[in-house]
């Protein structure tokens, strides 16, 4: 057990070392080149703001993360649902796929001000809508691809056992699709946080993290803006980590294959 923890630490050590080195260089460069506080605050200044303003930053972060989670749930849920329905009809799928891929290339975040106008800009629903739209397409496209990439031989084998379409869906298509779905959910978890925060940059409740970062930047309170970005990053990481954890639980039966 201790050996395992030891090897884990050894695995992480290089990343931690790089992080510490970067922070040290950052701190040193500001002192050496006399960089102005508003251009780039010292890591130590950000850290102290991160601690001192914790009673403002974390509630704001929680407010935003709720928007992101709501949008993530709605967008990903709809994405999987639509893919499941569309996947039943191969022709619909092939007709829809190019459109979905093209739509995926649209910078949806550009619609953020419009969503604020459509929904109440001060309520979380407008940010949830942006996050949901951002999550929908990658999850839909990947789920559909996953459902359609079941091996024809495996399906033929199931048909030799006189399995129904539902049985084939449950025992072959869904397990095949799961890794595709989780890849998309990881992307979506990051997109949801981006959507919520950028949505808030265009206006929102005063208790929201994006609004806080934006207003701090406007009044030259850059140190706290950076601390807010740090909070946003940590929350985004937490959401991503949640998806990774869920993947481990759901896809636990299939062990990680050796990397090729």
């Amino acid at each position: 057990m201790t050996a395992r923890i030891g090897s884990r630490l050894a695995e992480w050590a290089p990343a931690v070392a790089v992080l510490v080195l970067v922070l040290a260089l950052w701190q040193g460069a500001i002192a050496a080149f006399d960089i102005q506080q508003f251009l780039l605050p010292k890591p130590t200044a950000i850290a102290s703001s991160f601690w001192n303003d914790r009673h403002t930053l974390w509630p704001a972060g929680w407010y935003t993360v709720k928007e992101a989670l709501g949008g993530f749930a709605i967008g990903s849920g709809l994405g999987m649902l639509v893919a499941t329905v569309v996947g039943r009809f191969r022709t619909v799928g092939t007709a829809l796929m190019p459109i979905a891929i093209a739509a995926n290339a649209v910078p949806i975040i550009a619609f953020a001000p419009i969503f604020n106008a459509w929904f109440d800009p001060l309520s979380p629903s407008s940010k949830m809508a942006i996050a949901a739209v951002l999550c929908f397409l990658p999850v839909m496209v990947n789920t559909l691809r996953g459902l359609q990439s079941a091996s024809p031989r495996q399906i033929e084998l199931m048909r030799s056992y006189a399995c129904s379409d539902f049985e084939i869906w449950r025992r072959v298509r869904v397990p095949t699709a799961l890794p595709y779905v989780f890849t998309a959910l990881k992307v979506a978890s990051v997109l949801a946080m981006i959507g919520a925060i950028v949505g808030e940059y265009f206006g929102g409740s005063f208790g929201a993290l994006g609004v806080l970062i934006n207003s701090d930047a406007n009044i030259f309170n850059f140190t706290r803006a950076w601390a807010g970005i740090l909070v946003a990053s940590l929350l985004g990481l937490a959401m991503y980590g949640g998806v990774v954890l869920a993947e481990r639980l759901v896809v636990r039966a299939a062990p990680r294959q050796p990397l090729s």
Partner: protein
Amino acid sequence: MSSTNEHVVELDGVTKTFPRGNVTALENIDLQLRPGEFVSLIGPSGCGKSTLLRVIGDLIQPSAGTVLVNGKPAAKARADRDYGIVFQDAVLFEWRTVAKNVGLPLELLGWDRARRKARVQEMLELVELGSFGDHYPWQLSGGMQQRASIARALAFEPALLLMDEPFGALDEMTRERLNLELLSIWQRLRSTVVFVTHSISEAVFLSTRVVVMSPRPGRIAGVVDVDLPPQRTVETREEPRFFELVTEVRELLRKRGEHLLPEEEELLQ
């Protein structure tokens, strides 16, 4: 026409045309299989041997003719799970352990856990994978994966075993060893086997009968009865009679040689 309940498989005038490209994959195939026979289908690519196997398994519907399995229409036989099938690749489910893969047909038949477990272990031991039940497919070699898929096909003791070039992707040495294993399993279980292959020596070595097919359209060019002793060993491949039979099959394949493509010619060398 002979009595149907004597035959495990009875094909009568089976024709299959694929509308795309207007290809006649099979033309007027008549074939009967008696219980306990080991019949190989051999021929160049495009002769319809895999299609014929799938027609027997009701995975492809014939355009004309009748297919009876165990005296029933093929669709009924499939619904009754009258046959097990093995493909060229093992077709194991990568998210299931070897034991769970072998137990899949039993799960579908609604066997309870304890009964399933006992049978799976028995089958794994039959194919010499007794201690690999908890492994995942990717942890096994190609030959071991194929043995697992044979165990799966045999798990519910079907009277008929359909094999579509099961050893085609394996190296020569593994292939010859698995040939011997398959024969000993077949002799123990006394099931009927339809075995599709590209290899003349494999067909002669394993079979009681070799059905030689010719392409465009897929037809039966001839049938060779293999009168080698039922107990076959490594030495069987060195007997003069073995070579005579191999030559006989090769001649039948060659008779239609004018229709062959260059790469199919190579197959006959």
